[in-house]
């Protein structure tokens, strides 16, 4: 009996050491991921190789970074002169049609985050994100603090704040030259949440967020038709309000269904002063079949209401200040179906392959393929 008790004590100490080491020493890794996104009807295609890495500096600091190169090509739908009706590009003499407008773009985005752990193991995350495109420059600074409210680290609260400053090139469709103007926008994102361990195999997290956008929030490439079928009919740039305030809440729950299967559900509510409300429900199941293979499936449902200044018709807008026919601001639903497999070759090297099908009620369908390799050291 004494031997058995000693064994249990030793096992507990060993388990604690394992868990503590996982908590305190996040693995160092380098990962390469290739992401391919393709829409139906030859719309947008994106190829995005990504390099990411994480490195621990002692037990108190972790630095993480990633860089992604997007090559975007294809077409996106907007109102255009209907050339089949004999209309030239800019004289507004003919009819209009909602069809794809071709474009090519490259984007480089990078992020760097430093995690600092204090004596009580509270964490401070400070990060910087940059995004570079030919017509968009964006920089974001973020800071987030996580505080454990109990000695066993079963409950934590977190507060985060980020500030983004963007530069956008807008194109004036009304001038024959299509002259561009440099516009700016800023965004402030605040988030606060609480996380609670419910049992040895379940965890819940609730968060609230607020986002305030200010400046040029219009899509510089989207056009609307105004005063259709009158002497003043014209195709012109869309125009959105220059402020947007949004609020929302996020609730996440994860549990182990049995020794090898986990289930995660996430619900998000969003509302803003453009009159857009959205609900998102995501469900993910992972099955660790053995030490080498892990399979995952997921289902996401998203729905949103339309912006108060959205209308998809060519005969709706006249002299309204704000007008957009960008269907991303319309009322629609979307489903995402996901599946993935991970293969762990050994303790250092693992491979992943995933596929997803995204379908909007607007008619947009897209496939997402991700494949990568991760090296741990």
């Amino acid at each position, binding site marked *: 009996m004494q031997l058995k008790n000693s064994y249990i004590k030793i096992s507990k100490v060993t388990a604690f050491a394992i*868990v503590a080491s996982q908590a305190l020493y996040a693995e160092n890794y380098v990962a390469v*991921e290739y992401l391919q996104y393709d829409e139906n009807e030859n719309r947008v295609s994106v190829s995005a190789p990504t390099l990411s890495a994480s490195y621990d500096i002692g037990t108190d600091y972790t630095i993480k970074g990633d860089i992604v190169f997007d090559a975007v090509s294809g077409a996106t739908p907007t109102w255009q002169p209907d050339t089949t009706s004999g209309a030239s590009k800019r004289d507004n003499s003919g009819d209009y049609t909602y069809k794809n407008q071709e474009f090519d773009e490259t984007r480089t985005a990078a992020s760097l985050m430093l995690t600092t752990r204090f004596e009580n193991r509270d964490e401070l995350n400070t990060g910087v994100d940059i995004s570079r495109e030919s017509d968009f420059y964006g920089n974001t600074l973020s800071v987030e603090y996580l505080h454990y409210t109990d000695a066993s680290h079963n409950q934590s609260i977190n507060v985060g704040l980020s500030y983004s400053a963007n530069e956008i090139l807008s194109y004036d469709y009304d001038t024959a030259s299509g002259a561009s103007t440099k516009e700016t926008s800023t965004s402030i994102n605040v988030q606060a949440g609480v996380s609670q*361990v419910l049992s040895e*195999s379940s965890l819940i997290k609730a968060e609230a967020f607020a986002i305030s956008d200010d400046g040029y929030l219009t899509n510089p490439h989207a056009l609307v038709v105004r005063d259709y079928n009158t002497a003043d009919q014209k195709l012109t740039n869309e125009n959105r309000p220059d402020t947007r305030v949004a609020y929302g809440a996020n609730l996440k*729950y994860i549990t182990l269904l049995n020794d090898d299967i986990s289930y995660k559900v996430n619900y998000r509510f969003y509302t803003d002063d453009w009159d857009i409300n959205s609900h998102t429900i995501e469900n993910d199941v992972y099955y660790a079949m053995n030490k080498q293979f892990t399979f995952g499936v997921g289902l996401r*449902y998203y729905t*949103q209401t339309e912006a108060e200044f959205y209308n998809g018709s060519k005969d709706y807008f006249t002299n309204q200040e704000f007008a957009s026919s960008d269907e991303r601001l319309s009322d629609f639903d979307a489903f995402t179906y996901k599946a993935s497999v991970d293969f762990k070759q050994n303790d250092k090297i693992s491979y992943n392959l995933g596929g997803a099908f995204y379908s909007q009620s607007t008619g947009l369908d897209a496939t997402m393929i991700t494949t990568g390799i991760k090296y741990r050291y």
Partner: protein
Amino acid sequence: MRLMIQIGVLTLTSLLFMGCSVIKEVKPWEKETLAKPIMQFEGLHPEVRKFESHVYFSKEATRGGNGVSGGGCGCN
């Protein structure tokens, strides 16, 4: 579809309140399961999760709730 949303909200709300009433103190040495890769909110590959979030950000009109880090893009 509204029914699905209502069921989802009801389920999550129930889980939240059930959780509040059945919270069990878990000792550090009992957290081996919670440390498993399949038990992480961000999934097995955060970089894949980031890519998916970027797709939703560029194809839908709403965002937020996934942390404060991350920048914008000219895609919308």
